[in-house]
């Protein structure tokens, strides 16, 4: 039978801890003289935990998948492209011209370097012509007329090692004026 059930006894008044002030340590007050290990661990652990939670919030801000339009696409096989032709099949979808010469094949980004219009390929005159301000580019992408300050940019292009298909990656671009067109990633040898 529990002690508190015995009748007619005033409920015990639990004494205040350390009211006697006998043992300071028992109160575990932070004193300048001693800083108990327990508290150190506690604070360090807490700090670490909060840090962890904070960094979780940080990570939370970087989604694992993106819903952006694809920058990188497979463009079929080399032989799908006729030598000496400017191929427009990807212009609609990805804004890319694939140009194949005897020696090399490269991907031109269909954005005029003047004010970002989309030029047209004029087969007859064998040049790209921008409708906005009449900038003209050779089939190599080098500008030769109109206000365009510099040649068209070329996108990264390479053969997929797995199935030998052409892969174009718009996220990597090469500027002629920076001499980047010599970069092996900017063209495919055919």
């Amino acid at each position: 039978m529990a002690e508190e059930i015995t009748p007619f006894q005033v409920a015990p008044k639990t004494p205040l801890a350390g009211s006697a002030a006998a043992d300071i340590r028992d109160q575990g007050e932070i004193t300048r003289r001693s800083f108990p290990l327990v508290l150190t661990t506690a604070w360090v652990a807490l700090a670490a935990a909060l840090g962890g939670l904070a960094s979780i919030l940080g990570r939370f801000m970087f989604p694992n998948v993106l819903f952006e339009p694809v920058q990188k696409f497979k463009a079929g096989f080399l032989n799908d492209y006729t030598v000496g032709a400017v191929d427009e099949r990807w212009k609609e979808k990805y804004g890319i011209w694939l140009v194949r010469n005897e020696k090399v094949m490269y991907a031109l980004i269909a954005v005029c370097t003047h004010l970002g219009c989309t030029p047209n390929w004029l087969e007859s005159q064998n040049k790209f012509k921008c409708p906005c301000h009449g900038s003209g580019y050779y089939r190599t992408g080098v500008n030769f007329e109109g206000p365009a300050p510099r040649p068209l940019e070329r996108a990264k292009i390479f053969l997929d090692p797995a199935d030998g298909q052409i892969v174009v990656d718009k996220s990597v671009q090469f500027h002629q004026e920076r001499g980047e067109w010599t970069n092996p990633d900017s063209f495919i040898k055919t």
Partner: protein
Amino acid sequence: MKPQEPIPHNYSMAKLNLIFAVSALGLLFVTGGIVLYDYVRGWKWFQWEFIRIQQERLQQDLRAAQQGENRTRMAQLDKQIKQQELTIAAHRQQYVLAQRDLDQWEGQHYAADEDYRFAKANLDAKRYELEMAVLQKRRDRAQTRKEYIDLSNHVDDLQLRLQAVTRDRDAVQARVNAWLKKIKDAEDTRKQLTASIDLVKKQLAAVSTNGQFFILNAPMLDFISPTFKIDQVVLPDLFVNVNYMEVPRVDRCQTCHRAIDQPGFESKKEAARLSAELQQKLDTYQIPQNKRAATEQRIAQLKRIQDAPQEILNPWRTHPKLDLFVGSASAHPLLEYGCTSCHHGMDRATEFGRAGHVPPNAKMERRWSGFWNVAKRQWGYEENPFDETPMYPRQYYEAGCVKCHANQVQIKGGAQITRAEATVELIGCYACHKIANWRFTGLRKPGPDLTGIAEKTTPEWAIRWISEPHDFRSTTRMPSFFYQRNMVGPAVPAAERAQNIKYQDAEIRAIVEYLFSKSKHRVWPAPGPGDAARGKQLVNTIGCLGCHVDTETVKGATTGEMRLARRTDFPLERNYGFNLTGVGTKTNAAWIYNWVRNPKAYYPEAPMPSLRLSDQEAADVTAYLVTLQKPQFMQKPIRPVDPEAVRELAKGYLVNTRTDRDAEAKLKTMPMHEQLVYLGQRSIEKYGCYSCHNIDGFEGLKPIGTDLTIEGSKALHLFDFGFVHDYKAEDGVHEHVLHTVPSWIYNKLRSPRIYDDLRTKAYNDKLKMPNFHLTPEEARLVTTVVLGLTKDQIGADKIAATDPQTRAAQEGLKLVSQHNCRACHIVDGYGRAIASLISDTNFLPPDLTPEGARAQSPFLFNFLKDPTVMKIRPWVSVRMPTFQFTDAEANTLVGMFAAEGKAHEFDNAVYSMPPASNVAVGREVFNMLRCAQCHATTPVNPEAPPVPKTASTQSLAPNLTLARVRLRHDWIPDWIRRPNEMIPGTRMPANFPRDPATGGFISPLANAIDSPQFAKSKAALMPYFKSEADLKRTMADPVALTEYLRDYIWSIGITQIRAAAPNQAPAVIAPPSMPKQLPAMKTGRAEQGGGVTAGR
């Protein structure tokens, strides 16, 4: 600082500190817990495993490549390089000089170039200035213009100079290069040699699991550029339904199915198939020259896969047929079609369970449902009863084709689904179940017309037939409605069973009563005397057996003994017409006689065409068919109908609209016959006989079955599985009912009443779907189609076969399958069921695959409408029947052939007379190639040309005078060059063999022309050529030769055939129908057929 003042506390601080410490540590711990929980995902394991597999495979490839590499050649090249370097060193002087020269010129070039560009810039600026000046009418504009002109001249000069400098620079460059060239070449060749190895090494590096790999994939850091990542494809025009609207699919299947779109991870089986296919393509020159090398490499790789120690399992496999699916060069590239658009399943899901995988069979279900266990390949399968788009199980994959290809009869590369749809059409599901898509609408009722049944057969036969059609014909498409599992099955209590039998007897009798009382009674003229033997001979030869089977027993595949035939024992097409066995028992001579003479006379929509039998022939055929008896069938006892049962059933229907008393009263007024007729009508409604048969009094009723148009999208919880889990099907197969939609449908088809097992239902509430006795294979095919009928939304440009060309073709193909042309012909590469009965290919009906390219459209039209206009191969005994096509139908067919055969490529024809010289040359060539051996060239009557007399049937060939009116001008030479490639197995010899090296054609006359035997011909030919060289050149040129031949053939062809005769109207013979009497039906007691006997 003074010591702190002690104060009292409620709780001991020491305790609190301790709690604090512990809980703080706890918090730290669980924080780690979250990170772990978030990091550990099932798909990561799959990716990890795939990396391992890749490494393994690449190691293999590397080994293979290194074996292939040529050591000695390498050494050589290295030596060459060294040597060249030495020579350069030897002549250091010149080399350095050249170099310096070059540098200097480079400098100048740069300067010149700069000058030019700057000047040009100024010029542009000046131009603008000028324009402004002109525009603003400045006073100094003349001045500006002058400046501008000067400047532009200056620019031109600079440009000229630049060009000059460039020229010189290049010259020097060339000099320097001359030195370096050799080294460069050597290095290049070296690179080429090691290319393949370098490639493999590069790939290996890409999948190596080094420190960097672990850092990039570490928890919390794996957002920088992880190799473990979720791959997804967003499909903007293939929608998934979230009920309130259609949203684009986001497929993440690739996250686990890593290799799905990259070759090299095929299953061994697929690898074998593929390499065989590629090899075959190589051998037949279907692969362009520049791709052959690559193809050979691929085959080597596939071989390696087959030799690999262990099989690659899902989900790491490559998708089969990459050239058709998933591959970016294929018709369904991954980026545009994703996975779930065909396979179904939950897009977005990244866990096996949630992805909606569905087990194909009980075994897989048991395995999958186990908790995640890699070793046992248990992935934790969850069934979601609400998911409207669970994945199609393995055996139903091609269901995915239907939604986009719904308006196609044939789907290229979809043999399964094409066959499946054909099966559905044959069995006639569409008649009872509305399927609102192009493929299954506008089709004929599958069953024969019953408005004249009394002319055709007797009530006794009909009763027995309806009771169990399969007892009469084991291959019939007429399903069994009565005495089925839920009526008389073992599970049914004895008392109820007895009652059910009574009811079913009554219903059958009633239906027959109704049909016969409503039937027409035309009197058909009886046939004259016929010769059964000749009749048999005719039936076997004129092509009846293309559509009709004449046997009911076949040799068992496993055990040699004879067994009862099933539909699947014969080609689909041969089940088109009814099985001829017992036709004599079923019907009478008069009916047969008139039927074979002109089926359309019996009822206009009759599927059977007219074979233009003469009266005598018809009589013979009748004589034969009448002998096909099945007496034992008529011995089957007919139980007398229990009048009580009839009353009860009839009343059951009456009380729907009347009170009980009125119903009773009404019944009293009805004699038994009327009761039966009334019950018959109700029963026909109940079982929906009218859906398949024309029945008097049921015109324009809705089909009986549930609408299947979007059955494939019905959620699992909407299916009533009853209480069955597994059962023994009637053919002895032990079937399992999984808790999946496909399984439900499959078993519904296998045993339509199965879900009534152990159910307690009122007689009229029991399941009614009849039993088609489908084999497992048939059931699987039909299930595939049903699963494919979904409500998925698709972007317009994803729907197949919408362009007019294909539409025309498909419309035609629909006719082809409706009229069963494939019974005799090969259309689009398959068909010709009759081939199994005719040994000699010379007597087979033609292969129509190239018909569009081959035959001129006007001829085709004529011929289809009236095949008698021309006999091309008179020795063929199989007759092209008269289908009585309408002009529209004929046009559709012609259009189909034209589209399928790419006729437009051959239509640039000159139908005029070719120049005499060509003809002359052609004739010579014709002789040299000995074409006359087989082909007659003397004009004949196109409607009845004589059968050429030849040593062997091998050399039977059409008379060439019929070519001009029939064949397309440009098709002929093509055909002569490559007959075998157009029609494999044709008897036409290939005179122009392929050159194994180039794949081009070789002319047999190239050298032979010089041989003495052709001396005369050569002499004869000379006048037509400028020189002998010219002649020989021509003789070596297959194209030229064949065209000369064509011109010759053209020159001898007749130019006219008669127009098609108009469709002859059905011969109607219909005197006023006389009062019918139906013996033994008045009282419902059966005098005939053995009267009362113990029930089954």
